[in-house]
Structure formats: structure tokens, C-alpha cells
């Protein structure tokens, strides 16, 4: 539009619009539910519910050998914190338990286990339910570990069964020495909540004004589109910050996630991402002008990719190039990287500068797109 005097930003109008938006936000309980209650639920779910750490996996041990040696192997499993052992006498029984989903693995000792062991020809079979492959692999490792521990003990007492290994492995998991998944889930949770607050809530706001016809009278006032956009972002920005605070407090005091980087940087980069995510929601809202469509698109373009494609749960190193390319253009990918680094690794300037630059670019692009999609005109 070639307006002769482009209206300047007026603080009074911006404040009035923001107050209006905040009131509407606070009056609708369902907004607060998504903005504040849902983060609370998700904190609990993530902190307590989601875990990749296996304990007490149900395992059947079939041992027909009554010798003390065999019993010794079995007791090794009993002692392990990873397993809950059911001891059985027949393989058929064990297999039917596995089929029924009652046990996740079977450890099988032959009836002549101790005799064969003496003859250096013993085998222990470990069968795992491979459906959840990740879990299966870890269980296999735990089972091997339990057996290895037993054989080491035996080796100490002089009865060597295997040649000493030529090479041993010493593994250290940097940034997460305790090896608990909570430590990487909590930063991921913040990403989800920022995405949710941003995209989902704002995806409704502009569409709602279109649907209810209120924009028509708002347009015939001196407001400019910049004020309109800003007034829609500010209150939800506040809700997002409230969510962020909740997550940080929960991370620190409930789940004891270390914060190795600067807290200030965490807050700043979260604000930047929040801006990106709010703008995405607003863009969807402005472009669709329809609440239903907007929320569907917001869900598909923001929440699910943040969960699945950001590298927060699933590593992106092994996905096909095209999928990786998609994840490279998604802002959450960079936010996840930055947060995991800031929480667990510390301030790593090179990485953080890249992440910030990408998020900043995304924010600017989205802003421009919103401006283009919000004209003070009908049709």
C-alpha cells in the first residue's frame, strides 16, 4: 500500500491492544490450561514418566542344572538391579511367558551346564524380545554383564574359563556421567513447552479475530499492523516465560539437572526461540484465518517436528539425507542443540553462535512473512 503517511508506532495504542489481548488470554480458561497447566503436567511426565533407563525388566531363567555352579549364575541375575527374575524349569513354559509378553528375555542354561563348563564347552543362551530393539540391545548387554561378573568372580577364585581379554574398554559419558536420561529429557521438555505455548496458542489468536469479525472495526482505527502483531506476541511471550521458569525450577530442584552453562544465556536463547515459535503460530493464524485449520497446521508443523525431528529424542545422524535436510531447516533443531549444550556441556561459543544466528534468521523471516500476510484490508 502506498500510504502517504505511514503511521508511526504509538505506545499508547500498543499498550491498549496488549492489555486487551492479555485480558482475553486470562479470561479463557482453556488458554491457561495449555499455557500453564500443560507444562506442569509435561514436567511431571518428563521428569518421572519418560525414562530410557531400564530397571527391573522381567526375565525368565530356565535352568535344569541343579549344581551349585548353575545356581551361582542364576543368583547373579537375582542380584542385578536391572532384572526381576522368574525361575522356571522348562523352556516351553518360558517361551509361552515371552509370547504372552510377561517376560522380556529368557536366559537358558543347559541341564548339563556345569559338566560342559568343566569341559570348556558351555553355552548360555540369552533370548530377548527384539520388538523394542533399543531396549533389547541394552538388556542383552545387561545379561552379558551379569554373566561376565560371575565369571570374573570365578576367575579370581582361580577357575579361569576364558583367556584374559587382550583389550578392555573404559567408557566415559561426558556431560552426563550419571547416565540418566532425565538430564537430556529436561532440556528437550523446555523445547516442547516453548513450541507448544508459542505455536499452538498464537495459531488461534489472529484467526479468531477474522472469524469473529472484530478485525473489521479494529482496522478502521489508526492502528498499524506492527502494533497489532506486537500486541498479539507480548502476552503469549509472558506465558512462555512463565512456562520456562517452571521448567527451569523443576529441572534444578526436582530433577537435579546440572546447569553447566550460563543461566542468562539459557534464558536469552529461550526468549529468542519463543519469539520464533510465537511468530510461526501467528503466521499460520494470519495466513489461514480459520481456527481449525490453523491449529491443525500448527500441530503438524511445530509440535510433532519438535518432538520427532529435532534430535531431542532421536539422533539425526542416521536418517536419510532428505529427512536430515528437513530437520536442518527446523528451528527446534538448533534450540535443542543449544539447550542441551548449555545445560550439560557449558558455554561452547562456536556452537551457540551458530544456533543463535539460525534462530535470529528464522525470527526475522517469520516476521517479514507475518507483515506480508497481515494487511489492513479485507479479502
Amino acid at each position: 500500500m502506498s500510504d502517504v503517511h505511514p503511521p508511526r508506532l504509538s505506545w499508547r495504542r500498543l499498550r491498549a491492544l496488549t492489555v486487551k489481548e492479555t485480558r482475553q488470554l486470562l479470561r479463557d480458561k482453556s488458554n491457561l490450561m495449555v499455557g500453564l497447566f500443560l507444562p506442569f503436567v509435561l514436567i511431571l511426565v518428563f521428569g518421572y514418566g519418560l525414562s530410557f533407563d531400564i530397571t527391573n525388566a522381567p526375565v525368565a531363567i530356565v535352568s535344569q542344572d541343579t549344581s551349585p555352579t548353575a545356581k551361582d549364575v542364576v543368583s547373579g541375575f537375582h542380584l542385578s538391579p536391572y532384572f526381576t527374575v522368574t525361575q522356571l524349569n522348562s523352556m516351553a513354559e518360558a517361551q509361552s511367558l515371552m509370547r504372552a509378553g510377561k517376560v522380556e528375555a529368557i536366559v537358558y542354561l543347559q541341564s548339563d551346564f556345569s559338566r560342559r563348563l568343566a569341559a570348556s564347552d558351555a553355552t548360555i543362551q540369552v533370548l530377548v524380545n527384539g520388538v523394542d530393539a533399543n531396549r533389547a540391545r541394552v538388556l542383552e548387554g545387561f545379561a552379558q554383564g551379569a554373566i561376565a561378573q560371575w565369571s570374573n568372580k570365578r576367575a579370581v577364585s582361580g577357575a579361569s574359563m576364558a583367556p584374559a581379554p587382550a583389550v578392555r574398554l573404559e567408557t566415559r559419558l561426558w556431560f552426563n556421567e550419571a547416565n540418566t536420561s532425565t538430564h537430556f529429557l529436561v532440556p528437550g521438555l523446555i523445547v516442547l513447552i516453548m513450541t507448544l505455548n508459542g505455536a499452538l496458542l498464537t495459531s488461534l489468536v489472529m484467526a479468531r479475530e477474522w472469524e469473529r469479525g472484530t478485525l473489521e472495526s479494529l482496522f478502521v482505527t489508526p492502528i498499524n499492523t506492527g502494533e497489532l502483531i506486537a500486541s498479539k506476541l507480548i502476552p503469549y511471550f509472558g506465558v512462555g516465560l512463565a512456562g520456562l521458569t517452571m521448567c527451569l525450577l523443576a529441572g534444578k530442584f526436582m530433577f537435579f539437572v546440572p546447569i553447566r552453562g550460563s543461566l542468562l544465556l539459557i534464558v536469552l536463547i529461550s526468549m529468542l526461540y519463543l519469539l520464533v515459535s510465537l511468530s510461526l503460530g501467528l503466521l499460520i493464524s494470519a495466513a489461514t484465518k480459520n481456527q481449525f485449520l490453523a491449529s491443525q497446521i500448527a500441530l503438524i508443523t511445530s509440535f510433532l517436528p519438535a518432538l520427532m525431528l529435532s534430535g531431542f529424542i532421536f539422533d539425526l545422524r542416521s536418517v536419510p539425507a532428505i529427512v536430515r535436510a528437513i530437520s536442518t531447516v527446523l528451528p527446534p533443531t538448533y534450540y535443542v542443540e543449544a539447550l542441551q549444550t548449555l545445560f550439560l556441556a557449558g558455554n561452547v561459543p562456536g556452537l551457540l553462535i551458530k544456533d543463535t544466528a539460525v534462530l535470529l534468521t528464522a525470527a526475522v523471516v517469520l516476521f517479514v512473512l507475518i507483515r506480508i500476510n497481515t494487511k489492513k484490508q479485507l479479502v
Partner: protein
Amino acid sequence: MNAADDFIVRGDNLTKRFERPKLDPVTALNRVSFGARPGALIALVGPDGAGKTTLLRLTAGLMRADEGTLTVLGLDAAKQPQAIQDRISYMPQRFGLYEDLSVQENLDLYADLHGVGPEQRAERYPRLMEMTALAPFLDRLAGKLSGGMKQKLGLACTLVRSPELLLLDEPTVGVDPLSRRELWDIVSGLVENEGLSVIVSTSYMDEAERCAHVVVLHEGNVLANGTPKELMSRATGHSFLAMSQRETPARKLQADLIDRPDVIDAVPHGGQVRVVLGDREPLSLQDVTFEPTPPILEDSLMMLLRHKTDEQPAANAALELSKKASQDHSEVVIEVHDLVRKFGDFTAVNRTSFEVKRGEVFGLLGPNGAGKTTTFRMLCGLLPATSGTLKVAGADLRRARAEARQNIGYVAQKFSLYGDISVLENLQFFAGAYGLRNSRAAQRIEWALDNFELKERVTSTAGSLPGGFQRRLAMAAALLHEPAIVFLDEPTSGADPLARREFWRRIGSLADHGTTIVVTTHFMEEAEYCDRIMIQDAGTMLAIGTPEEVRRQAGSGGEPAHSMEDAFIGIVEQARERAQRQDHAA
């Protein structure tokens, strides 16, 4: 501003087209030229789809014309919409209120947006409150206001500062006569005392008559343009009051007259029938006398439309109906006794009792928020009564078996058919829902398409239809199963004069064939089409009887009130005064 040009708004050859997917574009405005002088009230009138809203939106800078030039306050509307918007106020059809904000918050928002400072507010607010009488409701959410109050609040929001031009888009749709009168008093006060310029679109011709200048639009073209006097003069000598010498009710006489090709228009009025004739000579009909009467604006509008389209106002509107087996017109089909409905401590309907007989047209009148819709919803079994008894076709529909609902048809106030499926699919659905099958369903759908002139729109989605078609479709869907009783909640709200004539012609033929009709309306002259009416206010029944009886009840010194509108306002105001006196006494 050009000195020679003292128009505040001036449009030349304005054309605006809207693209439609898969269809030809609609031409909303076709080379429209008009002008508005400062300090005057200008009315835009015309039937549905005339282009009134589009013209207002162009003026407000919300849209750009495809062709032509439009100058508002000396500025080019296409090039400087913001500069115009800084100086005008506009109230869209849906008022543009935030329903989840309170009255005060809505006012403050617009005051802030227009940059109205505290001193100006201190001066302005009390005046707005005085004008709109909204002061007691400042803390109420706008969504909880009645239609009339919403509309006054909408107006107040546009008047928080002094605009140089005020645009109002159908400000009185769905608003009762009392609120309508108050709104117009406010607007004309502003014009007279402050020299405000106002452009208003309306489908009420009595409102247009109060304006300095009237622009008649029809399908995007200007049909006429002039002062109300100039326009009315076209009908001079054509207007008559007809009266039957026999005891034929006005509604019957009106139906007979309007079907005649030599009659341009006929509406019941104060027990007589107001007719506009093609010739300046009265008709010679047996037992009917014609008295000449001064024309009103509506008469000339009807003449203009007849010249333009050469169609009779309610042509083909009479429905083809089969006679019902039972023709006992004394049978009581709706019985309501001491009906009460409370929402919390608010009484929406208070001890209401009435009866409706078979084949009767029963009108429910009352200001916004009087409890008409609540009464309706209870009758249809959508809402349980707090106390009292009601019987519709012998049963309380809330408790009766689902089949009892076969007897009723219901047309809600708001268009409530499925907007995203086609006209035909809607009819098929409702036919099926009422248990009509195969050939019977096909036959009834055919009947509906024919009688409601929906044929050429069968494949359009219902939501994309113009308002007039939607109203016809809603009524058609409610009549598919030939219900014995039909409920219509404000069926003519927002309808143009032509559509309203058609509607009442259809209602008349239904009643003649034994269908009972219960209807609410805000057009008081339409109450004359009813056999009996009831006036409600604040949940309480104030008057009941034939239109004649009600007018008499409201009249003074044995003379019945001149028109139904006067009668209505009289009765409601008397009741409100009584209630106030009792409040003071208590």
C-alpha cells in the same frame, strides 16, 4: 479539498468484483456513482446482495475498488486508507465488539486506539452513557449483553472520539423497536447538534425516511438517488388502504391482493391492507374498498424494484400444499401453563401461560432479551423448564419419545444448517433424519426445491449462499416432513422487504392448510400477519390477543393505537414504568 467539491464522500463509476472458486466472479458494485454532503444522514437501501456493505467497506478503506475513484474527506480511498481511517468511525454489521471484554474495557480499548486523552474521556464518557444508558452494565462482558445493548455499545465505541464521518452497516438488524428508536435518536441528535456526517445502510424503510438523502441499490447498480421526498413522490397516487367489507382478516385480504399482477405491493396495516397499485385508480373488487393514502418510502422502493425486475413481490411464494386430514381449527395444539425458566437467580421466563390452536399464526413479540428465544427452546424440548407445564402436540418434547418431535419443525434465529455441504445434501439429510425415505424423500425434496426457488443452487454449499437463500433453505428443511407445528425464531431478521413479503405469503398458505405457526419478529408491522400475538418483556407476558385487541389495549381513549409499533412501544414502556414504580415502592 477542492472548493467546488463540497462532498465529504464522492464515488465515481465504482466497480468491485469478487472472485469465486469455479464460478464467474460476482459483481458487487457496477459503475456506482454517489456523493454524500457533510453534516447529513445518508441511507443506503436495497435488497440482499445490492452492494451496500461493499460500498461501506470501500469507503472505510477496507477494500479497494477495481475501477472508479472514491474520495473520502478529500483523500483518495485507494491510496490513503490509513489517513482516512484516522478520521472516520465505522461500525460493521457484527458490531466488532470483543465479547470476552467488559463494556468499559471495550470502550477504553477504542478510546486508546483513537488516542482519546483522559480529559476528553471525562467529557465524552458521561455523554455516551447518557445516550446509551449502558452505565449500569459497565462491568458486564459484551458477550452477555442483549442484541440491542450490544448495538448501542458498538455505536458508543465508534463515538469515543468525534469522527468526521460515521459509517454504520445495518446497525439495527435483529434489534427490537425500542432499541431501534433509541439508536436513531442518538444518531440524528449527533447529526443535528454536532453536524456529524453519517452513512448508514439499512433494510428498514422507515429508517431511510429519516435520512436527508437515500441511495437505492439493486444488484450493484444505483436504482435511484435523492431525498426521501423525491423518491416518495414516485408513488404518489398509487398508495391505498384497502379494507374488506366482510369480516375477512387483513392477512387473508393481503394474500389475495398480493397475488394479483396489477398490485405492486400489499401489506397488512392496522387491521387494513396497505396496497400499492400499478395504476393510480383503485381496483374494483367486490366487498373491498380502497382509500387513497399518502405514500411512504417503502411504497416507492417496491415500485422501483417492480420496474427493474418486473416481478411480483411474492410471486410463486404461495406453497403447494396438500390438505391435512384433520381440519379441526378449534383443537388446542400448544398448551403452556405457568411456565418458568431461571438461569441462576435470573428469571428468563416468568409464569407464562398461553394456548395456540391448530392452523393459527401465533406471534411472539418482545424487546431483545424478553425471553422469546428461551420460550422457544423450551417448547422445542431443547431446554428443560424450571417449573410449569407445557404440551406441544400433546407431549412435553423434552420427555416424550423421539418420534413426538416428528410433529414439529424448527427454524433457529441464526442460520443453522450445515454450511459446508450443499443445498441438496442438507435437504437429503433432514429428510432422512425425519424418517422420509426413497421416493417419498425425493418427492418432498423436489417440492422444497420448487417451492422455495432453490433449484439453480442445489449444488452450492449452504454456507456460501446469500442470506435470502439461506433463510429459504432453513425454512424448506424444517417443512420437509410436513410438521403440524412450525417454530420460527426471527425468520425475517435482516431480510429485505421483498424476502419478507415472500416469507409471509408462505406462512399464510401453511396456516390455511392447517399448519400451526409460532413465530417471533422484530418487525412490528409483521405482527399484523399473525392471528394472535403475545407481547413479552423481561420474561413476563404483557399482552395477548388478536392484533386488533392488542392495539386497542395500547390505545388511549377508546382509540386503538395507530400502528402495531406504537402499540408495542406503548405496552412495553407502560409495563417498565409500572415495574419501576413497584421497585421504588418496595
